[in-house]
């Protein structure tokens, strides 16, 4: 699909938009009087129930859902000035930067009041999930080897069995994936073991991926034995693969990302955007909710280290800092 659109884009150079669209889906309303444009990093399929739930309550709103990768949201909004009403992203740092740089609107309502303090920033960034960065393993590929439950155990396992794992470890390519970069930078803040692990993975010819879903697919097929920093929520959502993968949330610490929504400053229909955010947040945070496609943000894992929202997230977006981090990372991983 993505390649098809890319091909289309290449074929039509007159298209004004330059950011890469993965998929654009229109959820037409019966009465098409209002249009709500959502730009999102979340797969369309995952988000469909939320959109349909919203349209059941607001039958006059047509929703155009544009799925992109996290760095493309910034590209579209900041650099190209594309017009969207709501941006939904797992890249907390980029969402925070959007709010910090004045690309979002502030909003407060009964629904936003449901969010605990740590889940919102400046009444602009509204978290609606807590999703851990997990290890996804293939029991078939591991064979008799024990399943590691912490980074120390993982490092030990990789060191002891380079023959098993060479070329069969996966993680995000932090150069292209915003979420991968966020997880990696937070790891580097939290623990020294991150760099040891990165170097070790580099020495074992680590496979780099753009997206969690691809890693999960390859783990389930046994091509990859261990994938590091995979979005646990995506892995758990693949109930069809439940037998062929094992999901481990490391015991030493589990980085937890907050998926969030912002209302964009250039919205053409602020009321619709606010209504959508209200719907989304009510679904997410109200106790006793039903069929919400994301894990309950109120469930706390014991080792969870949620990434705090706030200006600290801007640090790793600094160009000098990013260059430095990436060069260190490349030195470690591309040996």
């Amino acid at each position: 699909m993505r390649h098809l659109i890319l091909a289309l884009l290449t074929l039509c150079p007159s298209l004004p938009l330059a950011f890469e669209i993965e998929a654009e889906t229109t959820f037409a309303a019966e009465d098409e009087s209002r249009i709500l444009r959502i730009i999102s990093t979340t797969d369309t399929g995952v988000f469909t129930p939320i959109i349909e739930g919203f349209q059941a309550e607001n039958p006059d709103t047509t929703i155009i859902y544009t799925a992109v990768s996290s760095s493309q949201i910034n590209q579209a909004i900041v650099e190209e000035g594309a017009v969207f009403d709501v941006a939904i992203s797992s890249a907390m740092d980029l969402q925070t930067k959007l709010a910090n740089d004045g690309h979002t609107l502030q909003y407060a309502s009964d629904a936003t009041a449901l969010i605990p303090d740590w889940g919102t920033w400046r009444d602009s960034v509204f978290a609606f999930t807590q999703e851990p960065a997990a290890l996804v393993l293939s029991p078939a590929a591991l064979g008799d080897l024990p399943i590691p439950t912490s980074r120390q155990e993982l490092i030990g396992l990789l060191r002891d069995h380079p023959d098993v794992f060479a070329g069969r470890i996966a993680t995000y390519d932090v150069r292209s994936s915003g979420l991968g970069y966020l997880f990696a930078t937070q790891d580097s803040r939290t623990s020294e073991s991150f760099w040891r692990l990165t170097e070790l993975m580099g020495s074992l010819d680590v496979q780099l991926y753009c997206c969690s879903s691809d890693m999960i697919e390859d783990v389930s097929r046994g091509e990859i034995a261990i994938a590091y920093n995979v979005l646990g929520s995506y892995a758990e959502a693949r109930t069809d693969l439940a037998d062929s993968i094992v999901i481990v949330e490391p015991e030493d610490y589990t980085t937890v990302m907050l998926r969030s929504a912002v209302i964009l400053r250039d919205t053409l229909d602020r009321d619709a955007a606010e209504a959508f955010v209200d719907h989304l947040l009510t679904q997410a945070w109200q106790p006793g909710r039903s069929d919400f496609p994301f894990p309950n943000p109120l469930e706390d894992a014991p080792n969870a280290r949620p990434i705090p929202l706030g200006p600290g997230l801007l640090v790793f977006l600094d160009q000098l800092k990013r260059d430095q981090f990436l060069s260190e990372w490349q030195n470690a991983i591309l040996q």
Partner: protein
Amino acid sequence: MTPAGSIYRRLILQLVGSAAILAAILFFLFQTFARQIAVESQDNTLRASASAILESVSVQQSRVVADIPYAALAMLGNVSDDRVFYQISQGDTVLTGYADLPPRPGDNTAWTAGYQGDSIRMVQITRSLPIDGSLSTISVTVAQTQDGLAQKLAQISRSAILVGAVFFAVATLLALWAARSSVRPLNTVAAAVSRRGPDDLRPVTTQVPSEMAPLMTSLNAFISRLKRSLTRSEDFITEAAHRVRTPLATVRAQAEVTLRRVDREENRTALKQMIRAVDESSRAAGQLLDHAMVAFRSDHLDQREIDLGEITREVVARQTPLAALKDISFDTDIIEGCSFQGDPILIQNAITNLLDNAVKYSPYETTVTVQVVPPANLKITDQGPGFPSENTARLTDRFARGANVGQTVGSGLGLTIAHDVASAHGGTLTLSNNTEGTGACVTLSLPS
């Protein structure tokens, strides 16, 4: 007497006014200090952040690199949810961060500027680093919007208003209390003085604060002067009555004696005229003294139970011989039980003058009617020429006489005396003409 303001009110106004001014000053001081502290604390956080960033700047292979510590920006987020901007530059070249931040005005290390429609507080610190053998200036700017500060200031303003209001309320209560207790001695003295009887001219001995001592001394000095002067007036009146009347009586007696001895008709006529003039002088002197007496006594009226019927009868009895000279008779019609509070000497004086007037202006062989009717009215009607129809009211003025008095001799004081007595008692004197036939009708009405 119209009071020139009130000490009590003035005190309250001044005290409450100064309390309001002090409360306002307190409010502004409180707010200014709190604001200063709030701004300083934001500056300190920004400065800490900037120096943490500057600390991380180093030169590697002739290139400036900055490894911004996570905490440098995260610490700003701990204080408030404000937007954060930063910039690292080498000389005039922006190395990283927000390139379009407003430039630093002058030499301040902390200043406020506008950026992206928000007011931001900025802090800049600099450091020199050797690059390729020459020193290069690295400056780090960290800025933050002021929403949190504004919120804090609003909170501070509310507290400041509360502090000011409480201060003002307490000060106002104290002002009321202070004003009341300051004025209390004045009221005490006023009450002590006004409680006194008409003849009480003792010095005032109420305890007063030292500030009022001069007033009390002056008041007591004044009272004693008044007492002396009153005594002197009384003595003077008595003295004058004696000194005027006695020589006149002597002159009259001598004239009578001489009249008996003189036979020539023209001499007798002259002497008779002289006797008459002496009589008039004597009466005028008497009336003048009466008038002085009325004026003097009106100020300190004696209050006694007076039976108007009885006192009228006494005066009529005393005036009957005089009236008989003109063959005038009194027709008295007295209803008993008309009594009132008053000064008997003055009332006697008034009735005497009214009867004297009636007799004086009545023709020979007529009747003067004297009526006493409840509640306390005395009505005297004669058969004389009556009052001139115009300016009846003026007749009670001193020395005023009717236009129709003709040859009748008079001082013009009789009605004045009666009028003054009536006023002193809170009563009235009504002048009218007899509706049946001729004659004047004078009514003295006293409050019973």
